[in-house]
Every structure is written in C-alpha cells, then in structure tokens.
C-alpha cells in the first residue's frame, strides 16, 4: 500500500497543508472550521515546522474581526499568514478582506462553507457565507471533497503568491469538513515543488519596513479613487491562467489533475449540471451511472469561482449541450437568480453576443442542499429529468417539498446507484457510549491497513445530554464519491436498545443485511422485545440479527459506560469487512496506538474488552412470522398541540426532511412550551423523595439544571380524590405562607430528568438510620417510571402558591415559583441552566431575554423544541438571539424600545385621562416593586383595556397596542464568557456605560464551551484549553472590576453552588437597580473535566480558595453612606491548587508538563492572593475615606 495514504477528515486534510505553508495563523473558533485552528495550534505547540523549517505562530483573537485585522497586519508586515473560519466569522472579516484584496496581498483563508443565520441559525453547510464575499475582490477556489481540500490548500497558496490575489479556499461545512476519507497525503517536497520561494521573498519585499518605508491605506478623493481602483484589473485578468498553470504543475508533481471548470460525462452530453462543492461528487457519480445507461448527461464542476473566467467556462462545456441546470447551494431572495446561475447566464449571454456560433443552451437555475440538506443521486436525476421537460421548472428547489411556492422538483426516493462492492454500514449510538470514536477508529483501521477506500460521516444530535449519534461508514475498492447519507445499508448497528422504540432503522436495509443490537436481554428473548415494525422489517428484508450485552462486558472489563471497543469488535466479527483475526489484531494495534500514552491500564482494559466480546456475541433466532404485540409508541402525547404533533414530533423522530415548506412559519417564529412534549427518559436513575428526612429547603429544586424536580405547597383540601395512591406530601414546615393545613410536596419529572445527581449532592438532609441515603435518592428509572409519571402529572395539576404570597428573599421561597425554563437539552448536570431557570422563576412572566450565540442559545432554542415556557396566564420569557458579537447591544435595543413605548403609553394615558377616569393616577404612579404591586398594575391594565374599547379616539387605538408596557418589564442579556469577555466585550462595555436599566448575566465557564473548550479571556491562569495547550499563562480578565470602575454599574460575582442565597440576592438587586447591572456567574462545565454530578462541590472549592470570590458592588449603597463593595465570601481556606487539581483542565498539565504546571500554579496562587487583598481593601476602603460611611458604620 502507498505509504502516503492517511485517513483524516476534511478539516485536518486542509490544515495539514495550511499549517506547513504558514508563518502566522490568527484564528477564532467557529463551527465547523474550529478544528483546523485547533490542530494548527496543537501542531505548533508540539514544535511541528512549516516547509521552511520554522514553527508557525498561532494566535487566538477575540473575534473573527480581530483575527482578520491581525492577519491583515501580519500580511502587511510580510508574514505568510492564514486563517480558518466560516459563516458569521467570514462576514466579520469582510471589511479587512476588501482591504487585503485592494492592496493585492497574497493570503489564503480556508473556509468551511456554512449557512449564515437568517430566520434561524444553522451550523451546517451551504454557500451562503462564501457568496457574501464575492464582491471583495478575493479569488474563490472550491474543493469538492477531502482530497481536494488537501490538494487545493496548496494550489490556492501557490496561486495567491503568484497572482497577488488573495484566495478564499472553501469546502462544504460538515459534509466535507467533517467527513473522514482516505487520501493521498502531500509530502513536504510536493509543497516545496509548488511554492516558489522567490514569490514568498517578493511578498516579504512588499511588506512595510522602516528600511524602505511606504504608506498604504491612504484616503483618496473623487478625482482619483476610481482610476486607482481600476489599476488592479490586470492582476484579476491574469489570475485564472495562473491558477490553471499551478494546477498543471500540481498534476505533474503528484499526478492528480484539476481544472478551473472540469467537465465529466458524455462527450456528446445534451443536459449538463453546473455545480460546485461536495454536491459535484454526487453529480459526478450519478452522471457516470446515467452515462452507463446511455443517457447524454454531464457535469461541469466549478473550482475557480472568482475570478470567474467566462472563457474557461465556455471552453469546458461540450458543444452538444442543449440545456444547463446551474445549482446553487445558497438562496438570494429577490434576486434574478442565485449567484452561480447569474454568472453562468451572463457568461453565456456575453459569449453569444460576441459569437454567433457560441453554444446556446437553455439555462435553468436551482437551489439545493441549504444547511447540509441531503443531496442524493435521485435528486440529481430529478434535475436532469427537469432539463428534459419541454418547459423546465425555472428557479427550482430540489431536496424539499415546496408546497407554498411550488418550486420543488419531485424525485424518486428509492433510487440507489451505489455498486454492490461498496460496503455500507450505519450505526446508532449515544454520544456518551463512544460509538463515533470507535467508528473513526474502524475507518482508520480499514483505510490504513487495507487497500480499501473508506469514508465516514457522522450525524450528531442538537441535544447535549442523551444525544444520539448516527455514523455512516462506506468501504470500497474505489475512491468513494458518495457525499450523502447511507441508504440501503448492509450492516446496521443499534448500540442502545431504547432506540428501537424511537427510530426507524431497518426499513431501508438492503435485503440480507446484518443487524447488531446491544441489549441486556438474552438472545433467545431478543426477538420478543422488538416492536411490530422491527420484526416486520427483519422478516421482509431477511435480516440476520446478532446481539451482545455490551454493557455487561464493559462493566466486567472496567470500561464503565464506554462500549466503543466492544461494539467495534462485534462489527468486525460479523460484518466480514476484514478477516476476523486480522481485524482483531488491527483493533488491538489501534488501541495501543490510541491509549498507550494514557497508561498501560487503559490499554489492557480495552484489550480485555476485545477478548471478552466474542464469547458474548450471539446470533438471535428469528422465527417465521411477526409475533410482537406492541407497536412503536407515538413520539409525543396525543394531548400535544397540533403544531407539536404535526411538525415538531416529525423532527423528533428523525423525519424532519419529510416536512413540507408550509409546515413552517415564514419568519422563524416558534411557540414556547414545547420541550414538555419530548419525554426523552434518558436518565438511568432519577431522584426519589424520602419525605421522612426532608427539611423542605428547596435546594434540590434550585440546583436542578433541567427543572425536573419541583416543590409545591398546597392547602390540604386541594389535594383531592384524584390523588394517586403513592403521591407523597408532608405538612408544610414554614409559617411564611397564608393558610392552614398546608402540605409540602417534592416531585421529579421522571421522563425529563437527566439523572445528573446534583439534587442528591446538594441535599443537606441525611437519613439518620442510613446516612448513605438522603432525603432524596437516585433510583433506577425503570423501577419508578410509571409511578412517578402519574405522580408528576398529578403534581402539575395542583395549584401553585400565588407569586405575591411567596417570600422571595429566601431560596426556599423563590423555588416555589414556577420555572419558565424546563427540560432543556443542556448537558446533564449543566452549571449554566440553574441561573437561567432562576431568572425565569423570578421574572419570566415579564422578561425580554437577549441571548448571545453559544451553549445557552443552543439548549435554549435549537429545534425541535424550546425549554422556554409559559405560565397558566400564557406569560413567559420573550426570547431572541441576534448574533454572538452583538448581544449586549441587541438587549439594549429591547430596553430602548420598552422605555420609549412606556413613555408613549404614559403620554397617551395622560392625553386620555378624562376618558379613562379615576384610575389614571394609579396607572401612572403606583409603585411596581413587589410581585403584589406588579400584579395590581396588571389588573389595572386589564381594566384600562376595557375602558379603551369604549373610547373612540385614535389615541385609544394607539394605547391598546402599548398598554402592556405600563407593567414593569425586565430586560436580561444573557451569554457566556466568550461573548462577554471577548467577542462582545466592546458592546457590553458600551452598554454598561450608558446607565440604562438592563441586566447582564454572564454564564462564565471560563472557555468557549459550545465549540469545544477554546480559551477565552475568562480562562483561569494555569488551565489547559484549546489555544492554551501549555496552560493559560495570564490571569483571567477581571471583568467585574472593569465594570465597577464605572461607579454606577451594579456588579456581582456569584456561584450558586457555593452560596445560593448570595446568588439570589445578587440577581434580585441587579434587577431592581435602575441602571446597568452585571452578574458574573460561575458555571461548572463539562469542559472543566469534572464529574458533573458533583459540580456544586467545585463551586465550593473555587470559592474556598478565593480564586472566585463572591461579592456585590451596589452603587446605591454609596448614597446610604455604606461601603458599595461587599465581599460575600470568606478569606481563602484552601490553596488554589486544592481546587484546581480537582479539575482535569488544570490537572492534565501536571501530566503533560509538570514543571510548567508548577510554575503556572505558583503564579496563579500569587495572583489570587493579590486580588483577594485588593477586594478586601475595596470592601473596607470607604469606611476609611468616607466619614459619612464611618458614621453609618458606628
């Protein structure tokens, strides 16, 4: 086998070249490009050199805008510089891109083409981002697959150096960036052969230098700007030929040939598709299939999209062409057509105008594949079929059903063109069970150890807990061009038995396929456990069924919940892809390679798992007929609203592709209270109340990240005859609520709980007979599911204590409030969601919430459902996400509107005072500081509306639409530290400075959690994060102190696991402060490498060490003569290392670089000490300098 083969994904393929051709990389993480920057950083940290023998410098910036600025600067000072980005990131680079191109500067930006957020955000792939940079003057080179992403990274770099035109080298996000393929790797010598050092030297010679100074970036006037702008034209004119020349040199060097526009298909084709990106491979595969059937069809693959060389384009088209379908993976509403289409039309029109003999095909444009929508051979065929029509559909869509505008082409869903010698396998796993990792290993084994080609593509869940993964693997004797999901698999594996009741896995299986199931059920009983649909598919398709109890093998061999190695062994044992012995040897070799550095024990554990597996793998006897007595249960309850049943349920069951356009709102607006219908039942264990020991503190309710455990206090006579026999209550232990014979109850939502265990961890009440138990204990879900589901439904039917009766200044009281954020898809044990839930409990019924992009926007609003919900009156948090970078400004906009419209409403009330009558004074003057007062104002507004109906004045009509603004609204601006400390800091700072009544909650995990743990300015000193490979060398930015510096901003730093009451107070003080407030909330996170069930302990540890002091700065206290800064935590009880080394993010450095770890920890401890002393001074300084305060203190 050729030693140059490697099996990598598209991002790594590209970065493998880009890193070796850079002196500087300035980056910022964004999906799906993040891993390119991360790999470049890791490689540089390990000392890997570029082709000139020096290690590239990789820097992480605060935003893509910042990265583009740094790239521009690095280029202007002469470094060969690159960056990696996508989507909104690319948009933020546009201003610099115009400059870089205007200055004819050589560089390549490697872009994983991703959808731009419009009616919704999407992390997936299409060309809407790259199409926005068409006018910047950059060359645009498209790669269609993993090999091309590797090769064209070099071609782009060589071409930019020669042409001086900067290049965007792009490939499809996820479909190519995350597809694992076997490819031929370019050697350093290949790179050197293509890169002319003299061009690099020329690039350096053009750089700014005081030794030969120039100025660049002048301002020009109407007299000359135009002419000067036109001066670059020759460079653009020359660029296409330069690129082709480089491609030809490349072909000569490595044997792979590329063209600017590359034609594949019948030489006498009459129908041709023009397309670029990964869709081109699918078209090529289909064209070959159709050509073999005698159809005269072809493909024109676009590689160099800008500068668009009409001559090369026309030259590449077969003269026989009669009709062209130009496919765009983007949408440009209101345009005459999408960009590639209009370019093609223009190129042909110009050619036809100048040459009577030019080809004159009919051209139709179409859209496909938005946001990684599947694009399959059957869709390609539909496009060709459309071209055969007498009047082909123009500006069509393919891949969806557009029943609104009737743009879509219909297609045959059954067409499969893949040859029989391609092995297709599909695996359903849980994120946590290691399925994807195992499959990536399998691809590497086959790719690296055999002559077979291999391809892997992985579909991930948008949930972060209980997430399902579906792996699509192909192995075959030829290069694999199928850039779409697998249909008719020969092998299907279900790694979680519960999935059989939720997903259809077998209906498209190839006849005679093999099905592998992980189940604890013995082989002879497995058949009986299948629902009717599964049994029927097995019989119809003659599927062979195997089973293994992988979790018992994992438990016996110390693997815990990771069944990856076991299921991988089963796959090789029964799939026949490789001879069994050879496969097992290869698995063991991979295990050694993967885990050796992590310790011999881990290697041995995995070996033991492999060795134990085969004995427990059994074939399941399949009888001749369906014997099942049950069918798959419905996805959602029949009680769900129609929209949930008809739309969201389809998405939940994995049939979202089948929903037509009419199913969706045209503006991205969705209803609340939809997560309640999912009932995922993902917990292995759920908390069960032991009322005998409960002290009714409600701490468990406070900490539950998923609002899955709740308490109520109800009058005894309200617990009525419908009460389930096992529903538990105890006499209420407080005297703070009105009424007699009150009962307290605590109830889990068994199918919504994720089983994290934070509730049992926080419970302070121990069972005195058996102190290992508490007043709430984790119990296996199957044992209690039915019972607790009934109890939960009954619990929901009980009335809540009226808000105005509750003492909100205690945790116990506040936790009787109904949460309007429930059952999110956040990580099990999430450290952020308890804060958001608390906000919704306190203010959810009158709150506008601006949410920065990140974890909180994903678990807050990723379809199918949202955890934000409404109360019985239909009130709830009004939530929106604008962007990552502008969230503070976005939220400020809410406040400005509220203030303006409240002012206008008050003006209208005053204008209509005579008609409205006696309630005007109260409407305009009544205080709204308590829940009772706010409720009274709501009642007044209801009364006002009644009156307005009788008033026949235009002002009354105006006021009807604004009257709600007379009730106090809360504006909360929520986001993570990546937003607040980095990309959104400028806006956040400005918003804080304005003194408007907004509240900012920073969910501070100390890293970019959503994109996988990249370093932010909140990352603590000494912690390892991506882009802080050797530990963060500088302390976390003290955002609180920066805000305090304004003097008129309320600032608090909180950690609910260390002091829940301080958290509650801080949020309440922030809300009732009539100015800007900032609450910085310690949020434990999976990216810290901790046991998430014990996350609260980490809060205590970090506060005890003073690395996260708790404090509140309240400007109002100055007027009262009090010290504005209150230090709420005690002096350090422990060392910083006592906290830090209980978290993997710090501990791992002691294993990878102990000396550096020690040095950084010493600095961290010194820094914490210094800061603590400063906070202590601040907590006392006013009493020394402020006589009034001294007096008050006395």
């Amino acid at each position, binding site marked *: 086998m050729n030693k140059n083969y490697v099996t990598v994904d598209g991002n790594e393929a590209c970065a493998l070249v880009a890193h070796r051709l850079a002196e500087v990389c300035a980056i910022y993480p964004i*999906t*799906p490009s*993040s*891993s390119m920057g*991360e790999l470049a950083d*890791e490689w540089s940290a*390990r000392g890997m050199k570029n082709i000139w023998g020096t290690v590239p410098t990789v820097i992480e910036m605060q935003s893509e805008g910042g990265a583009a600025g740094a790239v521009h600067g690095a280029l202007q000072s002469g470094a060969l510089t690159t960056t990696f980005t996508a989507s909104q990131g690319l948009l933020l680079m546009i201003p610099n891109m115009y400059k870089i191109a205007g200055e004819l500067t050589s560089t390549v930006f490697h872009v994983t083409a991703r959808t731009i957020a419009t009616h919704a955000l999407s*992390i997936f792939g299409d060309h809407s981002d790259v199409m926005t940079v068409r006018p910047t003057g950059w060359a645009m080179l498209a790669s269609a697959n993993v090999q091309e992403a590797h090769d064209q990274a070099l071609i782009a770099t060589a071409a930019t150096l020669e042409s001086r035109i900067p290049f965007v080298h792009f490939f499809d996000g*996820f479909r190519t960036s995350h597809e694992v393929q076997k490819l031929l790797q370019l050697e350093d010598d290949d790179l050197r052969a293509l890169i002319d050092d003299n061009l690099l030297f020329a690039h350096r010679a053009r750089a700014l230098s005081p030794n030969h100074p120039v100025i660049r970036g002048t301002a020009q006037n109407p007299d000359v700007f135009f002419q000067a702008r036109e001066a670059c034209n020759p460079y653009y004119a020359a660029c296409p030929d330069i690129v082709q020349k480089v491609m030809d040199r490349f072909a000569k060097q490595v044997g792979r040939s590329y063209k600017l526009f590359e034609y594949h298909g019948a030489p006498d084709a009459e129908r041709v598709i023009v397309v670029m990106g990964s869709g081109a491979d699918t078209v090529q595969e289909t064209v070959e299939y159709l050509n073999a059937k005698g159809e005269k069809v072809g493909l024109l693959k676009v590689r160099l999209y800008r500068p668009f060389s009409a001559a090369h384009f026309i030259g590449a088209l077969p003269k026989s062409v009669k009709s062209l379908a130009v496919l765009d993976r983007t949408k440009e509403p209101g345009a005459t057509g999408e960009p590639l289409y209009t370019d093609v039309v223009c190129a042909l029109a110009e050619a036809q105008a100048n040459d009577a003999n030019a080809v004159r095909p009919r051209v139709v444009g179409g859209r496909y594949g938005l946001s990684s929508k599947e694009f399959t051979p059957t869709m390609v065929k539909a496009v060709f079929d459309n071209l055969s029509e007498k009047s082909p559909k123009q500006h069509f869509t393919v891949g969806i059903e557009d029943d609104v505008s009737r743009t879509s082409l219909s297609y045959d869903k059954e067409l499969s063109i893949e040859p029989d010698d391609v092995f297709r396998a599909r695996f359903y796993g*849980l*994120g*946590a069970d*290691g*399925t*994807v*990792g195992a499959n990536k290993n399998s691809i590497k084994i086959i790719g690296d150890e055999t002559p077979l080609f291999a391809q892997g593509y*992985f579909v*991930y*869940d*948008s*949930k*972060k807990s209980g*997430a399902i*993964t579906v792996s699509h693997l192909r192995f075959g004797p030829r290069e694999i061009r199928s850039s779409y999901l697998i249909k008719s698999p020969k092998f299907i594996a279900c790694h979680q038995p519960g999935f059989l009741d939720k997903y259809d896995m077998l209906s498209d299986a190839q006849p005679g396929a093999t099905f592998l199931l992980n189940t604890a059920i013995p082989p002879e009983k497995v058949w009986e456990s299948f629902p009717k649909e599964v049994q029927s598919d097995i019989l119809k398709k003659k599927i062979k069924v195997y089973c293994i109890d992988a979790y018992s093998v994992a438990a016996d061999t*110390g693997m*815990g919940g*990771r069944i990856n190695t076991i299921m991988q062994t089963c796959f090789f044992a029964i799939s026949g892809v490789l001879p069994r012995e050879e496969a097992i040897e290869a698995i063991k070799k991979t295990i050694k390679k993967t*885990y050796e*550095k*992590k*310790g*011999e*024990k*881990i290697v041995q*554990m995995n070996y033991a798992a492999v060795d134990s597996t085969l004995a427990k793998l059994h074939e399941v006897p399949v009888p001749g007929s369906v014997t099942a007595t049950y069918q798959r249960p419905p996805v959602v309850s029949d009680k769900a609203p129609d929209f949930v049943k008809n739309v969201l349920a389809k998405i939940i069951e994995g049939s979202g592709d089948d929903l037509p356009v009419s199913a969706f709102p045209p503006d991205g607006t969705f209803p609340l209270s939809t997560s309640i219908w999912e009932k995922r039942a993902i917990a292995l264990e759920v908390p069960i109340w032991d009322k005998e020991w409960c002290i009714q503190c409600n701490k468990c309710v406070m900490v539950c990240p998923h609002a899955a455990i709740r308490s109520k206090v109800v009058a005894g006579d309200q617990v009525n005859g419908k009460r389930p026999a096992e529903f538990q209550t105890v006499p209420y232990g407080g005297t703070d609520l009105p009424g007699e014979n009150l009962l307290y109850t605590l109830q889990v939502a068994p199918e919504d709980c994720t089983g994290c265990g934070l509730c049992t961890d926080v419970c302070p009440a*121990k069972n005195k007979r058996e*102190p290992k138990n508490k007043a709430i204990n984790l119990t296996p879900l199957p044992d209690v599911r039915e019972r607790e589901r009934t109890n939960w439904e009954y619990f929901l039917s009980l009335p809540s204590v009226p808000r105005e009766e509750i003492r909100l200044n205690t945790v116990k009281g506040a936790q009787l409030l109904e949460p309007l954020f429930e059952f999110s898809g956040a*990580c099990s044990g999430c450290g952020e969601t308890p804060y958001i839930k608390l906000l919704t409990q306190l203010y959810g019924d009158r709150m506008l919430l601006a949410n920065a992009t990140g974890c909180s926007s*994903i678990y807050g609003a990723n379809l199918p459902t949202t955890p934000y919900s409404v109360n019985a009156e239909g009130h709830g948090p009004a939530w929106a996400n604008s962007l990552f970078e502008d969230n503070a400004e976005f939220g400020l906009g809410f406040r400005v509107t509220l203030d303006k419209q409240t002012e206008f409403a008050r003006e209208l009330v005053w204008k209509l005072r005579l008609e409205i009558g006696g309630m005007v004074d109260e409407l305009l003057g009544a205080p709204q500081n308590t829940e009772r007062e706010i409720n009274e104002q709501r009642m007044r507004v209801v009364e006002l509306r009644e009156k307005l109906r009788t008033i026949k004045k235009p002002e009354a009509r105006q006021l009807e639409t604004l009257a709600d603004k007379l009730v106090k609204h809360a504006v909360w601006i929520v986001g993570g530290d990546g937003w607040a400390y980095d990309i959104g800091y400028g806006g956040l700072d400005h918003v804080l400075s304005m003194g408007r009544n907004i509240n900012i909650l920073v969910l501070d995990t100390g890293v970019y*959690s*959503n*994109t*996988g*743990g990249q370093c932010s300015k909140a990352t603590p000193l000494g912690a*390892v*994060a*991506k882009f802080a490979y050797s530990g963060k060398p500088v302390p976390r930015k003290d955002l609180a102190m920066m805000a305090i510096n304004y003097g008129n901003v309320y600032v608090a730093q909180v950690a609910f696991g260390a002091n829940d009451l301080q958290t509650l107070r801080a949020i309440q003080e922030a809300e009732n402060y009539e100015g800007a407030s900032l609450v910085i909330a310690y949020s434990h996170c*999976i*990216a810290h*490498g*901790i046991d*998430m069930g014990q996350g609260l302990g980490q809060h205590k540890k970090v506060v005890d060490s003073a690395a996260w002091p708790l404090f509140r700065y309240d400007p109002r206290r100055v007027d009262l003569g009090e010290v504005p800064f209150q230090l709420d935590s005690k002096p350090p009880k422990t060392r910083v290392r006592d906290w830090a080394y209980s978290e*993997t*993010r710090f*501990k*791992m450095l002691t*294993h*990878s670089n*102990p000396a550096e770890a*020690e040095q950084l920890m010493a600095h961290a401890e010194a820094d914490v000490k210094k800061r603590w002393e400063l906070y202590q001074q601040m907590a006392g300084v006013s009493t020394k300098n402020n006589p009034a305060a001294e007096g008050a203190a006395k």
Partner: protein
Amino acid sequence: MKLSTSYLGLTLKHPVMSSASPLAQNLPGVKRLEDAGASAIVLPSLFEEQIEQEALSLHLAMEQGSESFGEALSYFPEPDRFLVGPDEYLNLVAQCKQSCDVPIIASLNGRAPGSWAHHAKLIEQAGADALELNIYYLATDFTITGADVENNYIEILKAVKSEVKIPVALKLSPYFSAFASMAKRCDEAGADGLVLFNRFYQPDLDIEELEVKPHVELSTSSDIRLPLRWLAILHGNLKCGLAATSGVHTHEDAIKLLMAGADVVMMCSALYQWGIHRLARLVDEIEVWMQDHGYESLEVLRGSMSQRSVADPAAFERANYMKSLQSFRALA
C-alpha cells in the same frame, strides 16, 4: 564522636533519616530535607493503583462529552505525551540522585507480585540506592486468613528480590499474630531491612455530618513504644537491618530506639510539627547526650537495651503488660 551507621548496606553519617512522606514529594522538598541534615531520605511511595486510577480518571474526564455534539467533538487539546504511570516518580528518583549526596531510598506500593517486581526494577534503573516496600494491606476480606496475608508479603518480597540488586527493606505493620516469626520469615526471604512500623491512618466519625472522615494524626513520643518493644526483641536475631519509625520527636526517643536495636531512626510527624530543622537539632542533641553520658560511638549504644542485653529480658514480654497495669491500678 562517631555517629555513623550502616543501614541496608549504605553508610550513613548519622542514624537520623526522614521517612516516606509528602515532604519529599518533589525535588525542592528532597533538597530541603537533605539541607536539614537527613542522613538518608525515603521518598513517598509510588502507589501503583493510585497512578492507574489517576490515569483512568484523566482519560475518562478527557473523553467525557466527546464525539457527541457536532460543534464540540472534544473539550481538551490532545497532548502528545502524558506522564502517567510511574514516569513522574521515576523522574523524581533520577533527579534526586543527580542533585543529592545522601542516599535516596524509593518506596513502592504495587498491585500484584508481578507488578511490584516490574516497578522495583524501574526504580532501580532510575538510580535509587535502595527500595522500601510499603505493603499497606488491611485484611478486610472475611475469607482471607492470617497465613494468606503473611504468604503474600513473602511472595512480594521474593518477587522483588529476584528482580533487583539494590537493597530491599520491608515496611511492616504491627498487626501480625506472631510478629517475631513473621520478621524471621522476611529475614530469611531476603529482606535487607525491616522498618517498624507502618502507621495506618484510622478513620474517624463526624457525628454532625454523619460521615466517616479520614483522620491524620501526627505521632507523639508515646508511639515509639510499639517499635521499641519489637526492635528490642528482634535485635541480634536477624541478619537484616532494622529501622524505627513512628514517634521520633526528641533525642531521647531516638536514643531509646537505637538502644533497643534500631540501626536508624526515621522522622516524619516531628518534621511536620516542629519544622524540618528539628532533624538537625535532634542529631546535635543525640551527640551531646552521648558525650555527656560517655558513649564514644553509636555502635556502643545500638542494641544495648535489647532483649538480649538487658537484665530483665521478660520485661519486653507479655508479663510486663500485666505488671504495668497492676501498677497503674495501684497508683489510682
């Protein structure tokens, strides 16, 4: 005054060493102990099981959440090397050997006889002058007999001795039914030294929190009594050397243990309680005491109060207990 002594075949300038403790967990700590006058330094134990557990925890924590969510396929960068397993410990041994003049004695707690021997070999290769086997074993399994426990000790010792050439000491617990016999078996199985005794940290109960809490209690001078008795009984009856540890706080404590038969005394709690400079002071005080009492060398003093040498050998035996109890009652 000749204070020098020999232990495990190593010549020491005086008999006061530091015993295995976190004070020696890194090179600066070891250097501080050397500067404070320790004649030899026992490093804290390499706990194989703990290392394995740490490596496993690190692995699991790094894998947690990975390959699960499309935007975050991992949460940590992947270092190209990890110092897991014994590497860190072996580096410490090597660094100490390079930087210190006093003998460095490594300490080991393994998992199974084979792995004890494997790690012993690695420690030898790293340059340790000797090895102390810290067989920390509590027989809480109801099916394990005293004989099983004893045989296990001997098996481990033999496995290690067959693998390494450096001297090997055995740190023993006092909880053997027949300690003298056990000591003899160890001696015959090739132990170069016995260290009396391992102190097990006894758990405590927190009656407020209803929790079992590990309770670390520093030794006091009264803790020398147990090793003192057995040193006195063993001295002269075994080929191997004898080390005393537990309760050495004052020069009187040290002198008593040396008189009972110890070749060396090891300090730990006193260094925590009084600071590591206690060690040098203790050596000075031993020297002064010996001068004041006319001892010319340690050799004269060592074992002079062992069972073989005292006028009343039975005083070290069981009768002594009865006697002291009676006298206690009489006083009451």
